[in-house]
Structure formats: C-alpha cells, structure tokens
C-alpha cells in the first residue's frame, strides 16, 4: 500500500541549520549533513533543505552543503530557496539534489516550471505555495510570505500542475509556527483540485495533527520541521503513533 510520507525539513542559513529539528545526540546540531543523515536513519521518508537566506554570496556554500549531504543520502532529497531560473536549478541538481522547490519565481513566470520539468522531469519539480486565508478563499503570498499576489491558491495549484509540476508543497501561513495543527481545509481543497501529490506544511504540533491532515486534509505527505519541539523522540516515534492510528506509513524501515 502506498504510504503517507513524513518529510524532514531543515532550514539553512549560510551552510548551517538554523531552525527546525533540534538534536540531543549530535556532535554538531547545526551541520546539515549530519542532521539529514540522522533523520534518514530515524525513518524520514525524504529530506528537504531550504536555503532561507539565498543571497548570492552564500550560494556556493549552499551548493557545497548540498553536495556533501547528497553523497551519503539514499532517500529523496529536495533543495529549495533562491531558485529563480533554469541555471539555478541545474546547479542544484548537479550538486546532487533529486528535486527542487520553486515558489516566487514560478508565480512570476509559470513557464519556468515547464522549463525545468522538460530538462529534469516533472518528478523533480516541487512548486511551493504559501497560502493565507483571505476574505474569500486562500491567497498566494510570495517573497517568503511578505508579498500578497491577489491570486487564489487553489487556482494557482491547478495551474502549476498543468504547467508540469510534480508535487505541491503547501504551507499554511496562518498555521505556520502556531503548533495548532495543519490547515486541513486548505490542504483538502488543493489535494482535491490536483492529481499530483500534496505535501502539507505549517502548524504541526502533535501526532494527532498528522493523522488529521492525512485523513481529513487528504495530504499525501506532511512536513515535520520542528517535531522535537513537541516532545517526540524522533520521526520513528511519530510513525509508530501514526501506525497505531492505522495511517499507512513506511515503518519499520
């Protein structure tokens, strides 16, 4: 049976993990290479590395980290942040990423999705959407959630899929950082609107929130950015709880 994926997300700035999962047993809690390896061992189904600064002077540091992380990571590895054109994506793939995420650049020029997909395959293109509840429906924000676009999130997800996106990574800005649970309504609307997988993000605060977003939100995967903040030992423990609730997960692995 196809399982629901738990994706570990590491936010990185200047080559160091700055947010996300905190470790107790690491020699160096900020080293992305080691963090990714520990997650993989603990049962993460995928690793996402987000370069949250993405300034040009730190770009080469990022590529070097991607390359070192990819060398020993034999699960899907996604890299995002600062990808504005095909050549940016190509550099990240060359460094060893399996997929890239694009956000603002895709909103600005949706043809970028098809361009990257034509060269590297749709499976390698994840379109990240930051959405916020609006007067009516959900609105797309870009530039790290700073700039409203006036676009409807569900409509944009449909368009991105039609352009050749392989997956949608959907972040609820209302829930992000609140630990109040994923936005199941938003997730379900997008999941029903597209046939490509939807990764839910923003708001995880307990194992029950994952159960809810898989069942009610119909998410295919969910992002665990700060799982240790709510007292879980590791991803394996989360997976055991999901399994006990009859959510299909890759466990043991």
């Amino acid at each position, binding site marked *: 049976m196809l399982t629901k*994926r738990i994706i570990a997300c590491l936010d990185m700035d200047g080559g160091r993990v700055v947010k996300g999962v905190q470790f107790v047993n690491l020699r160096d809690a900020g080293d992305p290479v080691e963090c990714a390896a520990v997650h993989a061992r603990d049962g993460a189904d995928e690793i996402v590395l987000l370069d949250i600064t993405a300034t040009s002077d730190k770009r080469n540091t990022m590529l070097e980290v991607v390359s070192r992380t990819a060398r020993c990571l034999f699960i899907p590895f996604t890299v995002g942040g600062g990808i504005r054109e095909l050549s940016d994506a190509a550099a990240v793939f060359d460094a060893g990423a399996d997929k890239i995420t694009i956000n603002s650049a895709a909103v600005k020029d949706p043809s970028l999705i098809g361009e990257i997909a034509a060269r590297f395959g749709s499976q390698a293109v994840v379109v990240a959407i930051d959405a916020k509840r609006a007067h009516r429906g959900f609105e797309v924000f870009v530039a790290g959630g700073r700039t409203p676009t006036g676009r409807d999130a569900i409509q944009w997800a449909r368009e991105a899929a039609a352009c050749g996106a392989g997956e949608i990574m959907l972040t609820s800005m209302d829930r992000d950082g609140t630990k109040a649970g994923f936005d199941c309504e938003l997730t379900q609307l997008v999941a029903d609107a597209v046939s490509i997988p939807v990764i839910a993000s923003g708001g995880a605060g307990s194992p029950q929130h994952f159960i809810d977003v898989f069942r009610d939100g119909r998410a295919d995967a969910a992002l665990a950015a700060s799982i240790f903040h709510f007292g879980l030992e590791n991803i394996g423990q989360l997976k055991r709880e999901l399994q006990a609730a009859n959510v299909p997960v890759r466990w043991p692995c």
Partner: protein
Amino acid sequence: MIAIVDYGAGNLNSVKKAFDHLGAKVVVTTQPEIVATADKIVLPGVGHFSALGALDNTGLRDAVLQGANAGKPFLGICLGMQWLFEGSDEAPEFAGAGFFEGRCRPFPSSVKSPHVGWNSLEVREGSHLLRNVAPESFVYYTHSFQAPVVADTTAATEYGTRFSAVVEQANIFGVQFHPEKSWTVGLLMLKNFCEL
C-alpha cells in the same frame, strides 16, 4: 566496469552516487563504444517514454541490446525498466526492447497519478536481484505508467492495480522504483546486481 547509459533523460547523479557508495567502478556515458566495453549495463531514466527515442538516434540502442544479448548483467530502472517491455501507451510510436511481454499502461482512474512515494513489495522467492531483501520491504516510486505482472515478475506492488515492481530473466533485470533512493533496501539490490 558498470556503464550507466546517459541518453539525456534526467539527472543520473543519484544512480552513480549509489554505485560509488558501494565501491563499484562506474561511468556515466553517452558513448555506444564505452557501453560496448562495460561488464554490466544500467539504463536509468525518468520522464516520458518518448525520451527513450534518443537511444535509437544515438546508436546507444544497438550497443545496449548487444550487451544484453551477449549475457551481460543489465538493469533497467524506472523508464529503463518499462523499455524492457514491448512498449508503452505513453508513446506508442516508440518500440521497447521486448524482453518481457506486454505494454505499459496508465494507472486506473480510481487512483491519483503519478504514483509517488514509498510502497511495499510483494517479493516472490528465487529472485537474484532481491537476495536477502525482506519480503515486504518499502521502495520509493515516482511514475505515471506501469508494467503488467508477467511470468518473469519477481516482485509486484499494488496501486490501483497490481503491477511489476521487479522483473528478471537470466541476465536482464528491471525495477520500476528507484533503488538509489530506497534507502538500505535499494542499496542491497544494487549490491546484489554488482555481485552478479
């Protein structure tokens, strides 16, 4: 030496990396002459079945078929596995190699497509590629078309329908999932292939 055939379909880094990790001597090549000198051949590939048309135009198809017919261990991954069948509804104008009977078809409309993520194997005994692989291991998939279960299927997976996850016939092997992205289970299969 293992030749990973590069015909322009996607990113072959991950496949190479996995073989490097296992200590295998491996080259990624676009050259039919290099494929001809290899001891083993790997045909990866993602994307559309029509991408395989590039094999025909570059002389790689002949080099790959000669190696396979000469008994060299051959592994098709994802699209490379679909090529081992007669063809695919995704691009009916391109012929597969026809080592296995049947054509690749889309998933039934009852399930979302593409099929992306970790799904379990139903392993049949006696597989060489799956030696020491636990019977219900999880592997990572990403594909929109699937190959039928045939007599040479040594593992199947269920998603809307039952399809071939692994096929093998003498020296010819095919896997629909990505062993290079399937954690220790996938590495074990690649190690088995290296040791053939």
